[in-house]
């Protein structure tokens, strides 16, 4: 299964917190595509993903947006952030 999380316009810390929450809804081995438009987030979101045990497959840039593909490799548990 794959899912997409569009974080265009989102600010820290919600970039990595919302990414983590979205991953909670997926199964191990599922893929998540995270879209960001803040250049530091293109490095920091992958860093948080690897730091929490997930696999970052690729980070691609298209125009002003960055597309981060990750695979869920570990289970965590948070509740709901808005």
């Amino acid at each position: 299964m794959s899912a997409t999380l569009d974080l265009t316009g989102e600010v820290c810390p919600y970039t990595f917190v919302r990414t983590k929450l979205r991953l909670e809804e997926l199964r191990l081995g599922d893929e998540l595509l995270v879209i960001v438009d803040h250049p530091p987030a293109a490095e920091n979101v992958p860093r948080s993903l690897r730091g929490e045990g997930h696999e970052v497959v690729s980070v691609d840039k298209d125009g002003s947006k960055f597309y981060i593909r990750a695979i869920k490799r570990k289970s965590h548990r948070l509740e709901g952030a808005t």
Partner: protein
Amino acid sequence: MDLDLGVLIASQERLETALSHVVHPERTQIFLMDDGVCAQGAPRLRALIDAGAEVALCAQDAESRGMHPYDGGPRFGSQYDHARMMRDAACVVAATHAGTTKSRPAGPRRRIGVTLTADPRENPTATVQALRSAVGYLGCELDVRIKLGSRALSLLGDEPPREVLRHLSTLRGLGTKIEPLPGGPIDVEVIW
């Protein structure tokens, strides 16, 4: 790297006090945020980077002040770096405008106390920075307690400042206790 010491610097004026706690740079992580990012070029900080300390800063706070990364300087990081440092360091020094604390939590599961001392209506910046830090801590599965000094109690009212609404909503949605001082026990304290 075994992380002996994590140093949060959220106030440029407290830089030297905070860095005085560094004994083993190669086992130290430093995170700059708020106007602490203004110290990114400080010679003492550069020396610690050269000695092996991991130094990152909040890219959002730096960019809002017109700063850019440079070779040999701190890495432009995020609140994830901050939260992970709070989770992993054996000893935590937290230096903000409100003061400096030093905590040595025991055990892997630690409770972070974020103490607000300013009136959010008079100083929304400090409150915003404190609460967004707290959201970041939750993102690293830390147990967070928000403690309110007498001047910060308006956060419990019906109309907290607009700037903090999202952070408060997130913290409450994730089950965070927001309570007047003294509040419950904590292992690491950050005072804003």
